[in-house]
Every structure is written in structure tokens, then in C-alpha cells.
């Protein structure tokens, strides 16, 4: 059973993609909430430099040494960016955009020079080769498991431990850095730890999805989850779910259309984001439009109720409390006035008697509640 599970190439690929997504979501959630999403872009580009340097020094192209070594470059990028910003000569966004291209360029040039000896070429750097992960396997407990899957599983576990053990600290540092500092939570250290894990995840995911597609997995699932919920833990869960779904759908579509698997998975995260943007229960465009129209409708009903109430049993009643008055006095269009009256009748607030519009008991209570709230017990 397990044997066939690990022997199934599609399963391995989808699992790796899902783990890339989950590990990235765990750290990405906090980056998105802090407003530092673009740091993941900087990190993912500049780890190329780290990967090449570590390879040149140690000759190792994967494994824990490579992950930790190259991840330090990611932290270095952020450190240099902050240093450049602290000189006050450059704005923060420009500082980001100055540091990572330089490191990335050095990395790519080194790759050019040592192209014959390194296992990575320029292409892999950007696109990844998730379809080929089964070419590089390790034997674990008697099963041949792709190296990339093992690294990703390890990184996911580490990220999960980091987030669960430091959940409260991360939460406070993210939402109220001032309070976190006052309580002695060392927000700066926590921030750099988060960035270190982001870099480590980027290095581990590098073989599978490359540098740029990684950015999609860090930013897009948490952003989509952010549109769906206000709860931090739910955001993490939704983000992970979106990652898994993207990996699955991405694989199926990529195989069907014979295109890059990693690319398709990343595109799918974007599709899920669009779905969340449109159909989110609270912040979705449709939900908000619906809420707006409902509110406008009940506001119109209130307006009519007040209008009828203030002219009820007065001399002008025959002239005021008719449909035409709503058009001429309230400036509504004919159709709009008719629609509101119909809705009022449906909701049992208005009665029609010939031309005259009368308030029901309920409609009168509604108008009174607004005009004379003190009468309510």
C-alpha cells in the first residue's frame, strides 16, 4: 500500500506541491499581515546567490547544510535592505529593489561561469522542475522518496512548530508591535526568525518551483484566506487548504494541457484568490454589493414609512401619501418608487387603498421608532 503510494509519481508531485504551499502559507500569512509581502520576492531571488555560494564552498547542492547556508542569504538581503534604508538616502521600496537584483545578478553570473558543474541552470532558477523531482530520490525506511519531498516535509514541520509554539508571540508582534516590544517579546528577533524560515522554505522549494513561482505560494494563498476570514488561525487553515487545492488542480490541468506543473499550480493560487475576491462571505465583491443594495432598500423603506407617518391624518394626506408624491417630493424615479412600495407591501409595512398609501401597524411602529424613540418603553 505504502509502496504504491511512494511509487506513484503524480502523488509525489502533488504532495510536494501541496507541502510547498503549506510551508509557504505558514510563514507567508504573517508577512502578508505585516505588510512585508514583497520581502518574500526579494528573498526568493537572492537565495540563488546563497545556493551557488554554498555549493562553491561545500560542494553540496541540497540537504540541510544547503538549506541553512542559502537561507542566511535571504536574511542578509533583508538586513542589507534595512541597512540601506537606515541611511535615509533611499526609500524602503527602492531599497528592496536595489539589493535583491544585485545579489541575484551575482548568483546568475556565477551560474553562467560554472554552468558545466552545477546541477542547476538558469531555467530551473526561475521555473523549477517539479515534474522531475522523482529523478533525485533518497531511500528512507526502504522506500524511494524524492529528495525535494523530504526537504519540503522537514521544512513544513519546522514552520508548523515555529507557528504553533510561538503563536501568541507572533500574533501580538504582527498586530501590535508596540505592545509586543513593551511586553518583552523582542519583535525584531521574531521578525528575523520568520524571515529565516521564509528563506529556508524558499531554498527547499527551489528545486520544485524555482525562485519566482515560490513568491506566488507565499503571498497568494494567505491573501486569499485574508479575504475569507478575520481569525488568524482560520486564515492559516484556509491558506493551507487553498495551497493543497491549487497543487491538485494545477497538476491535473498542467498534465491535460502539457504545460509547466509548477507554473500551473501557481496560476491556480491566483484563480482561488479571484474566487475569494468575488465570492468571499464578508469581504467578497458580490457579498458587499448585496449588502449595499439591501441596506439601500431598507433605508428607502424607512424613508417611505416616515414620509407617510408625518402626513398621516393631516389635511395634505390625499396629496402627500400617494405614489406620485414619492416621485415628485423624494426625487425618485417612477420604477424605483413602485419597487419600494411593492417591497413595503410584501414586508407588511404599507397598505394600498385606492390611490392612497396607508401605514400598517408595523410600518407605523418603524417610523415611530425613528422619529420618537423615547416613546419606546
Amino acid at each position: 500500500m505504502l509502496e504504491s503510494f511512494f511509487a506513484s509519481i503524480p502523488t509525489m508531485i502533488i504532495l510536494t506541491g501541496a507541502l510547498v504551499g503549506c510551508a509557504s502559507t505558514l510563514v507567508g500569512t504573517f508577512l502578508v499581515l505585516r505588510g512585508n509581502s514583497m520581502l518574500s520576492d526579494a528573498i526568493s531571488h537572492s537565495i540563488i546567490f546563497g545556493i551557488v555560494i554554498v555549493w562553491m564552498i561545500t560542494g553540496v547542492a541540497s540537504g540541510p547544510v544547503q538549506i541553512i547556508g542559502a537561507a542566511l542569504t535571504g536574511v542578509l538581503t533583508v538586513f542589507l535592505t534595512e541597512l540601506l534604508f537606515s541611511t535615509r538616502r533611499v526609500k524602503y521600496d527602492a531599497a528592496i529593489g536595489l539589493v535583491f537584483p544585485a545579489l541575484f545578478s551575482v548568483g546568475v553570473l556565477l551560474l553562467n561561469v560554472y554552468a558545466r558543474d552545477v546541477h542547476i541552470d538558469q531555467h530551473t532558477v526561475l521555473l523549477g522542475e517539479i515534474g522531475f523531482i522523482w529523478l533525485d530520490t533518497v531511500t528512507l525506511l526502504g522506500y524511494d522518496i524524492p529528495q525535494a519531498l523530504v526537504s519540503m516535509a522537514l521544512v513544513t514541520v519546522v514552520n508548523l512548530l515555529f507557528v504553533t509554539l510561538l503563536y501568541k508571540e507572533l500574533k501580538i508582534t504582527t498586530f501590535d508591535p508596540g505592545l509586543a516590544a513593551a511586553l518583552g517579546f523582542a519583535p525584531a528577533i521574531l521578525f528575523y526568525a520568520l524571515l529565516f524560515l521564509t528563506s529556508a522554505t524558499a531554498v527547499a522549494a527551489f528545486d520544485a518551483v524555482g525562485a519566482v513561482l515560490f513568491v506566488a505560494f507565499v503571498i497568494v494563498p494567505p491573501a486569499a484566506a485574508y479575504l475569507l476570514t478575520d481569525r488568524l488561525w482560520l486564515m492559516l487553515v484556509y491558506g493551507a487548504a487553498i495551497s493543497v487545492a491549487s497543487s491538485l488542480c494545477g497538476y491535473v490541468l498542467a498534465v491535460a494541457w502539457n504545460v509547466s506543473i509548477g507554473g500551473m499550480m501557481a496560476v491556480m493560487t491566483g484563480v482561488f484568490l479571484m474566487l475569494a475576491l468575488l465570492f468571499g462571505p464578508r469581504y467578497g465583491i458580490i457579498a458587499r454589493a448585496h449588502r449595499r443594495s439591501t441596506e439601500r432598500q431598507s433605508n428607502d423603506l424607512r424613508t417611505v414609512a416616515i414620509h407617510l407617518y408625518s402626513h398621516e391624518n393631516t389635511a395634505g394626506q390625499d396629496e402627500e401619501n400617494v405614489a406620485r408624491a414619492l416621485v415628485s417630493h423624494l426625487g425618485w424615479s417612477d420604477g424605483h418608487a413602485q419597487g419600494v412600495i411593492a417591497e413595503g407591501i410584501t414586508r407588511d409595512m404599507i397598505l394600498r387603498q385606492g390611490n392612497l398609501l396607508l401605514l400598517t401597524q408595523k410600518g407605523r411602529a418603524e417610523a415611530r421608532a425613528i422619529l420618537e424613540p423615547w416613546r419606546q418603553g
Partner: protein
Amino acid sequence: MLALLNDYTIQTVAMGAALLGISSGVLGCFAVLRRQSLLGDTLSHAALPGVCLGFLFAGSREIGSILVGALLTGAAAALIVLLLTRTSRLKTDAALGIALSVSFALGVVLLTYIQGSGNASQGGLDSFLFGQAAAILRSDLWIMGGIAGAALILVALLWKEFKLVSFDPGFAVSLGLPVVALEIAMTTMVALAVVVGLQMVGVVLMTAMIIAPAVAARQWTRSLGGMVVLSAVFGTLAGVVGAVVSATARGLATGPLIVLAVSAIVLVSLLFAPERGLAWAALQRWRNRRGLEGRQVLATLHAMATLHGDRRYPVELGALDAFHGTATRATLSRLEARGLIRPVRHEPETTPHWELTQDGLAEARRLDHEIGGGML
């Protein structure tokens, strides 16, 4: 060297690099001033799907349709950023990251689709990732030049408006300028700059060419006009150096070389630009500290002299060191060189002692007066 300049390819490459430098240098200035540096990053990554779509549309590596495609997808990415920030609760950074990564992913998918479809002429498409100067044709230059020229004319015509919107959008609105339209025009120009540089630098590193020349130029001048001109010069310089090196040395991608050249220019500018240079600032700080040390030691000598009612009261080196909590020997030597103090012997002690000269007394009194009140 002369033979190198006469080489046809090198000439083409250098001209392309100059076009790249001028357009991204000039147009990047506005992006940097408006704090939209990372929009350049997003637009350049978003050019990839456009390159592929242009290729699919034309069926070959035809530069015109590829550049139009890149421009269109860049504009679409900018629109998505706008849509996400306006209609959802996502912040700008997340919106930029989303547009960047998803459109790049789309580009990757299209790229593999083209490769899978076995089109024989797709070989040149990869060069759009990291740039390949040697792949530029003389005919491409006309198109690049046309786009760059159009963008520059637009800048010249709307110079005053762009300046106002960059520095004080609120004031621009109050004057009745169409600020939204101008902002769209400026964003479009970033996309244009990306498109011009695409063949040279590639989609991944184009962001550096938008940001770096402008940042470097900003260090040297306070005027927008000066900044734009300098930025174009820096961009051209980096472009030509990187492109020529890449075209002569085999196997080195052009984009990274250009980016390294422009990064070096930024580094030099940050360190040595007059007024804003970090090196000058550090030098000034060091000078100030030294001057302050001299004043402090002089004030101490003066205070001792006043306390003992003797202008020539000799103060021992060790006492000065202990009082200031630091070695004062070098400071004393500098004061002596200025003729403000002189070393004296104070028998029977053998340690060095110092006293004020006539000038030193006058200087100490002047300083004392300057800071408004005595040490004692």
C-alpha cells in the same frame, strides 16, 4: 579597442543599451519619486506572459508584437494591483506580490505551452528571461527607439504636470489637473521603459534598471531636471558597459552584468555624492567629534586655571585622561599644533604637564562665552 568599436554587433548592442539606459533612467525617476519602485518589479515580471502571447500571436519571434504583448500584460497587471487595493482589504504590497507572481506563473505556463507545441522558432524566447544583448537586431533598434522616443516626448510635453503630481498630488488636484489620468500616464511609462529594456535585461532584472539609475542620480542633485538627465546618463553607462562585456565574453547573461554595473554606480553615488554622500557624512561626523574633543580639553584646562587663579596652571596628562575618561594625548598634540597650549615640566614630577598659552586663554574665553556660561 578600435576594432571592437567598429564591430557591427557591438555597435548594435551599444545603441540598444543606450536606448535602454535613457528610457529606463528618465522614466524610472518618476516611479522612484512616487514611491512606486516595486511597481516596476511587478510590471517587469508581468511582461513575460505578454512576450509569450505576442509570440503566439505573431507565430515567430517578431519584436513588434512581442513588445505590444508585454505592454498590454504590464498594463493588465497594473490594473489588477489597482483593483485589488481599491476593492479589497489587501494592502499594496500584497497586491503587487500577487500581480507579480501570478502573472509570471502565467508566463511560465505559456512558455512551456510554446515549447511543447514544438515551434521551431521559439529558441529566442528564453533570452527575454535574463536578456541577451547579442540577440538584438538592427531592425529591433528602430522599434525600441520609437517607443523610447515617444515616451520621452510625452515626458517633455507633460513635464510640469508630472513634476507637480510627483511631489504634491494634493496641490495638483486643487489646481484642477487630471491627476488620475496623469498617474495612469506615469504608470504606463514605467511599462514602456520595461518594454524597451526587455531584450537587453530580461523580465526578471528589469526592475533594477527602473530603480537604480534614478536612486543614484537622486544623490547628486536636488533638481528634477538634473536628476532625470543624470539618471539617463547612469542608465546608459551601465547599459553599455554590461552589454558590451556580455557581447564579447561568451556565456554571460547581459541582464545581470548591466545590473551589476548599475549597482556599482549606485554604491559610488551613495558613498561619494557631494552633500548626500555617506562617506562625506562620516568624515564630517569624525571631524565634529575631534573638534569637540579639542574644545572639551581646552575648557578643562581653562577651568583648572580659573579654579587656581593662575593662567599658567600646569595640568597633568593623567589627570586629563582620568577626567575625560579617554586618552587625550592626540587631542593635546592637535591643540599644541594650533598654538593654544604648550607642554611644560612641573618639577619634581616627571609626567607631562600642559598649560594654556595667551592664545589658548583667549580661545577658551571665547568658547566659554559662546556656550553662555562658565564651566564652573
